[in-house]
C-alpha cells in the first residue's frame, strides 16, 4: 500500500510539473487589472515566439521550451509570489514586467542564481554588470530613453536646443521620476529649460498639468506615463491643441491603445522605441503558419503585430538567443539558470543574426559583456498615423549620450554596491 501511494505521489508530481528536459521561461503576465491592455499583448508575443520555436524548430538546441504563466495583475506582492511559485520549475530567466517587481527580485534572484531581464524598465543602473551580476536591461534603459528623446530633438533643431523649453509630464512614481536626473544633466549640457510636471496615480485627472502647459507654452513635451495616464494625456494635449508632433512618449506610452481613444486628434504623436513595429518581417509569416493557423496562439491570437506584442516577441527572441549562446558555451542543451546567465552575458545581436531569425532591422545591434549588461543603448522613434491606425519608425536606432549616462550609472550602482556590500563581479 505504502509503495503504491509513493508511486502514485511520484506520478502526480511528474505529471504536474514540466518535463525535466524542458527549457523553462516563466511569464509573469498581467492579463487582468488596470494594466491588462498592455499586459495581454506582451504575454501573447512572449508565448507565441516560444511556441513557434517548438513547432518549427523542435525547441532550442533540440530541447522543447515551456512558458508557465503566472498572473501578477501588475502587483508587486503577487509578482514576488509568482517568482517563488515558479522558480522551482527550473526557470531560466525572469522578465518581471514591472519596475516594482524587478526591484524586489534583484536580491532574491541574485541569491538564487537566476538571471533577470528587465528590458526597457527596472533599475537603470543594473546596466553595470560589475555590481548587478544577475540583472540585464539590454538593449536600452530609461536613461537611454531620456537621452534618445533629447538627441532626436537635437536632430530636429539642427543640433541646438539652446533656449528651448521642454516639459516632462511624468507618472508620480519611482518609474516616472527615472528620467529626471538625466534630463537635468542634459538640460545643462544643451541649454534647454526643463519643466517637470508630475501626475498622480492613476492619471485620470490631468487638467492642472495641461493648463500649465497651455500657459507656459513649452516647445516640446516628453511623457513618462503608463496605463490610463497615457490615454488621458494624449486627449488633453489634443484638447489644448498642443502640436502632436512635438509630444514624445517613452516606449511604455507608445502602444495602439494609448492613442486610439483620442481618435484623429492623436495623429502625429511620437514615442521612443527599442524595437520595430508592424508585421512586415518574415518571422510573422511563420507565426501565422505555425502558431496562429494551428490554433496554438496565446490568448485570442488577435494581438499579433501590435507594439506590445512585438515587444513580447522581441524579449522572447533575446531570451532564446541567450539560451542558444549558453548551450554553445557550456556544450549542453539542457542548461541551468546559471548557465543561462552566462549566455546572456555573452549575447551578441548582429544584423546578420536578426535577418537569419526573420527579423531584419527589427531591433538595434548590440553586444553584452560582464561590465555592460545594458547593450549599446540605441534608441529609435516611432510616430502614430491616426488614419491608417499604424505606428511607423521615423528614426533609426541611434546612439544615446554615454558621456552623461555613464557617470550616472556608475554613481547609482556604486551606491547600491556600498549599501549591499557587493564586491565587483568582473
Amino acid at each position, binding site marked *: 500500500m505504502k509503495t503504491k501511494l509513493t508511486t502514485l505521489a511520484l506520478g502526480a508530481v511528474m505529471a504536474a510539473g514540466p518535463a525535466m528536459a524542458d527549457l523553462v521561461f516563466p511569464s509573469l503576465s498581467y492579463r487582468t487589472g488596470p494594466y491588462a491592455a498592455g499586459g495581454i499583448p506582451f504575454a501573447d508575443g512572449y508565448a507565441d515566439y516560444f511556441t513557434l520555436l517548438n513547432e518549427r524548430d523542435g525547441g532550442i538546441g533540440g530541447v522543447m521550451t515551456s512558458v508557465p504563466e503566472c498572473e501578477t495583475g501588475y502587483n508587486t506582492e503577487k509578482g514576488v509570489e509568482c517568482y517563488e511559485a515558479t522558480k522551482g520549475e527550473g526557470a531560466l530567466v525572469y522578465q518581471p514586467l514591472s519596475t516594482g517587481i524587478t526591484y524586489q527580485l534583484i536580491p532574491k534572484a541574485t541569491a538564487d542564481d537566476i538571471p533577470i531581464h528587465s528590458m526597457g524598465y527596472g533599475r537603470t543602473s543594473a546596466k553595470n554588470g560589475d555590481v548587478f551580476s544577475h540583472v540585464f536591461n539590454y538593449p536600452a534603459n530609461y536613461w537611454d530613453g531620456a537621452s534618445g528623446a533629447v538627441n532626436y530633438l537635437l536632430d530636429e533643431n539642427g543640433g541646438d536646443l539652446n533656449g528651448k523649453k521642454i516639459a516632462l509630464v511624468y507618472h508620480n512614481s519611482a518609474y516616472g521620476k527615472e528620467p529626471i536626473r538625466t534630463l537635468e544633466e542634459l538640460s545643462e549640457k544643451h541649454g534647454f529649460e526643463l519643466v517637470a510636471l508630475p501626475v*498622480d496615480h*492613476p492619471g485620470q*485627472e490631468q487638467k*492642472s498639468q495641461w493648463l500649465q502647459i497651455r500657459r507656459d507654452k513649452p516647445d516640446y513635451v516628453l511623457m513618462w506615463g503608463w496605463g490610463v495616464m497615457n490615454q*488621458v494625456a494624449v486627449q488633453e494635449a489634443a*484638447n489644448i491643441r498642443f502640436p502632436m508632433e512635438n509630444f514624445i512618449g517613452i516606449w511604455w506610452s507608445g502602444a495602439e*491603445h494609448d492613442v486610439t*481613444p483620442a*481618435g484623429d486628434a492623436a495623429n502625429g504623436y511620437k514615442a521612443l522605441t527599442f524595437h520595430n513595429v508592424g508585421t512586415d518581417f518574415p518571422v510573422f509569416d511563420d507565426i501565422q503558419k505555425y502558431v496562429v493557423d494551428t*490554433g496554438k496562439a496565446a490568448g485570442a491570437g488577435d494581438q499579433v503585430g501590435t507594439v506590445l506584442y512585438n515587444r513580447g516577441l522581441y524579449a522572447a527572441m533575446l531570451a532564446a538567443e541567450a539560451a542558444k549562446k549558453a548551450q554553445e558555451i557550456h556544450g549542453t542543451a539542457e542548461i541551468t539558470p546559471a548557465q543561462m546567465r552566462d549566455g546572456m552575458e555573452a549575447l551578441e545581436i548582429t544584423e546578420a543574426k536578426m535577418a537569419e531569425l526573420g527579423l531584419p532591422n527589427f531591433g538595434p545591434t548590440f553586444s553584452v559583456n560582464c561590465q555592460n549588461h545594458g547593450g549599446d543603448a540605441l534608441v529609435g522613434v516611432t510616430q502614430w498615423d491616426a488614419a491608417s491606425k499604424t505606428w511607423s519608425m521615423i528614426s533609426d536606432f541611434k546612439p544615446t549620450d554615454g558621456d552623461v549616462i555613464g557617470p550616472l550609472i556608475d554613481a547609482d550602482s556604486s551606491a547600491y554596491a556600498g549599501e549591499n556590500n557587493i564586491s565587483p563581479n568582473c
Partner: protein
Amino acid sequence: MLEQLVFAMEVILNGLMAGVLYALVALGFVLIFKASGIFNYAQGVMALFAAMTLVGIMNGQVPFSHLINAIFGAHITHFGWQVPAIIAILLTMAVMVLLAWCVQQFVMRHLVNQEPIILFMATIGLAYFLEGVADLMWGSEIKSLDVGLPQGINLWIDETTFNIFGYGFFIDNLDIVATAVAALLVVALVAFSQYTKEGRAMRAVADDHQAALSVGISLNFIWVMVWSVAGFVALVAGIMWGTKSGVQFSLSLIALKALPVLMLGGFTSIPGAIVGGLIIGVGEKLFEFAIGPLVGGATENWFAYVLALVFLVFRPQGLFGEKIIERV
C-alpha cells in the same frame, strides 16, 4: 500679478468643471447610502461595467466571446452590426436594471437587517465579481467611446475671455456637457425623491426599514429601484469619464475621487454631493496652481483627502449630512 489672477480664474473654472465630474460619481454612492445605509464599494466598478456594456452594444460585440471561443473552438467576436448610441444607452440601462435585480435577488435580500459592515463587505465582493464579469463579457482591451459628445476647447469662451482679459480661457466642451447633465440629474433626482410616491417610499425605507415594511412598502422593489437609479448614475459617469480616457479598467478607480467628495458633502445629501464635488474640484486645482510648484506638484489627491479629513474632524456628518444622535 494680474496675469496670475487671470490664470487663477481659469483654474477655478476648470476646478468647478472637474468637481462636477467627481460629483457624478459621488451621486451614485449617496443614492444607495440614503436608501439602504449601504456604502456601495462597487459604485466605481458599476460605472466601468455600464460603460463597457454600452461600448460593447454599440460595437455589436458578442458578450463572453472569449469564453465561447475557448469552449467551443469558435472564432466569433462581433455580430457585424453597429447600434446607434441612444438605443445602446437604453439597452445598457436595461442591463443595469437587470444587474440591480440580480444584486437584490442574490445578495442584498439575504442580508436584510445585517450590520452595515456586513453589507459593506458584500459590496466589496460584488465589486470584484463585477470586475471579473465585465472583463469576461467584453474583454480587457481599451475601447473608444463616442456617443457624440463634443470634446476640446470651447472657442466661444476662449475668444470672449481673450477679448476681456487678453488671455483665452481653456474650458473643455465635454466638461460643459457634464455640468449640464449633472444639473439635470440632480434636479430629476431631488424631484423624484420629494414628489413621487416611489421617491417618498425610498425615503421611508431609508429612515427605517421595519417601519416602512409595516406600512406595506416593498423593500425588494425599493432596493431594486435604488440600485437601478445608481446604475443609471454610474452609466452617466461612465460615459463622461470613458469619453475622456477610453473605456478601460481604470474607470473603476474614479471612486477614489468620490470619497473625499462624500466626506465633505455628507453621505446622505444629493445637493451635498454636488457642493462637495465643487469644493474639492476648485480646492485641489487652486492648491496645485498656487502651492504645487513650491512642493514639487502632484498635490491634488493629497489635498482632496486632507480637506476631507479636516471636515471629518470638525463636521463628521459632512456639510449637508444628517447629524446622527444615538441615545443609550
